């Protein structure tokens, strides 16, 4: 098949912009300023264990909330009449048309100590509450920004489930709850795993959300890496080492996820 030559541009792209940079990160992580091999930076990553734990925890929480919120939405969406599905999908996608920074910035003004939400609480004699600069605000930012990435893969898998399977389940003795457990969830497993991947990976490496909504006390791995390259702590070797460790962590978590998917369709 001559067709495979058409993939050449992508192959070149992948080598130049993905494989080579990855090798460069690995190189930086294992060398010092003189170019000599060292594992000092990798072992230094251990000092930041608390940030790693916080990042993993917050992104897991955000992913779980996304799944719980997106699952019923996607199911209802997939069972609507075809022409309504298009409109509803557009509404789901609508926030994504707005710039990511702007969206997050909007949350800053909403959640601020003198922001709209606290103002409304003030009207009924409550608050002000500390909303901004909390880990909760970071999770909220993640859920808000990444929710569509959970809905879309779930919807596209659920939409393909034949309606007659629900009737068959009901016919064979399943109440709605049992149909959900025995038919809908197993059949939407590929959507669940790819949705989790598509939310968890960007969430664990984000730095803007935690910067804007988390204040100084909720540093995530992304912030840490950014500081090593662009901030005062300038140390690209450490930055590369942290990135490498993060990559390994994501890889391990995704491999574990793969075990739940019978068809190995998880995006990696």
């Amino acid at each position, binding site marked *: 098949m001559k067709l495979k030559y058409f993939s050449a541009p992508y192959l070149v792209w992948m080598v130049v912009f993905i494989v080579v940079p990855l090798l460069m990160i690995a190189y930086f992580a294992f060398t010092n300023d003189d170019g000599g091999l060292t594992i000092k930076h990798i072992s230094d990553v251990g000092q930041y264990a608390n940030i790693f734990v916080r990042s993993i925890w917050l992104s897991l929480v955000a992913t779980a909330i996304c799944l719980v919120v997106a699952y019923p939405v996607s199911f209802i969406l997939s069972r609507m009449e075809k022409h309504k599905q298009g409109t509803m999908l557009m509404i789901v996608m609508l926030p994504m048309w707005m710039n990511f920074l702007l969206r997050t910035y909007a949350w800053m003004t909403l959640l601020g100590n003198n922001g709209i939400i606290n103002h409304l609480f003030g009207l009924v004699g409550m608050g002000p509450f500390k909303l901004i600069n909390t880990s909760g605000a970071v999770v909220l930012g993640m859920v808000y920004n990444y929710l569509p990435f959970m809905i879309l893969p779930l919807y596209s898998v659920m939409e393909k489930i034949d309606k*007659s399977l629900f*009737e068959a389940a009901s*016919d*064979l003795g*399943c*109440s709605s709850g049992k149909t959900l457990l025995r038919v809908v969830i197993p059949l939407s497993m590929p959507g669940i795993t790819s949705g989790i991947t598509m939310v968890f990976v960007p969430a664990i490496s984000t730095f803007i959300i935690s910067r804007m909504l988390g204040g100084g006390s909720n540093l995530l791995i992304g912030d840490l890496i950014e500081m090593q390259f662009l901030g005062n702590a300038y140390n690209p070797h450490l930055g590369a080492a942290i990135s490498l460790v993060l990559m390994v962590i994501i890889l391990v978590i995704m491999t574990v996820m793969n075990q739940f998917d019978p068809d190995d369709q998880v995006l990696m």
Partner: protein
Amino acid sequence: MENIVSLKNIVVEFEDSERILKNISLDIKDKEFVTFLGPSGCGKTTTLRIIAGFLEPTSGDVYFDGKRINGLPPHKRNVNTVFQRYALFPHLNVYENIAFGLRVNNVPEKEIVSRVGQMLEMVNLMGFEKRSVNRLSGGQQQRVAIARALVNRPKVLLLDEPLGALDLKLRKEMQIELRKIQQELELTFVYVTHDQEEALTMSDSIVVMNNGNIQQIGSPTDIYNEPVNAFVADFIGESNIVNGCMPQDCVVEFTGRRFECVDKGFSPNETVDVVIRPEDVKVIPADKAKLTGIVESVVFKGVHYEMIVDGVDHKWVIHSTKAEPVGSMIGMTFDPFDIHIMKKTEEA
């Protein structure tokens, strides 16, 4: 025999007030093989879905085993369905598909093993337990669907055109097999099809439907030999249907000629449908016949020849073991009891 399912004055209207079923009443006897037969859109599948519980009638009552079951959800009804396109669970293998209903109802594992084993044996799928249902042929999927429904020992099995996707030879085999299963297990089967031959082969009783109405209920022989109207006659086997009138009892006039018949009780000169089966048209020499025609075409059909004969006002379909040359003039005659007279139906 007792009635296992009864429908009383069932009406189904969809949102746009289109009437899918127009006042249907029907009794299905226990251990009977009943077939709903009719063209697509006649309401036969809708009737089946009402018995299964997937659809609630707009008005009318559904009785099961003497109890009114309107509003009872499908999973609480003692019926199981074999779906038109099988609706097997793609994430489960053959064994788990068949075991599905038992697992849902928390049947002990030991009993599941033996009951699924029996079913696999009955539908000839031993050795396929671990096979993915996506890797089965149409006929095998069909068997899994039947086993999956029957393993729950329903009182009534509903089958929605289950053989439609199979090729002719397989379909004939499955027809015989289904009939055998029904008789061995002594179950009530309610079978939906648009294939009249299928209905005649398998059924104890046939319900002919059209336009949301029941046209006729009867045994296959009754339906074939004594159709109540032109629609049934036309739908069940081929028929010659011509307009006629009844000048007096036992005399019918059509295509300008009078013939002796056995029907009485029509008002004088009432217009009627005259139905004559193609195999009941007798070919005789033209000079001895009241009715003549010119042979237009002859097609060999295996057991018989099918001839189209252009007579006065009507093209006659004739089935005969002897072919007449195309273009020749032949005579046609009928035995009085082969001429079926039917009242005109309002909806044509």
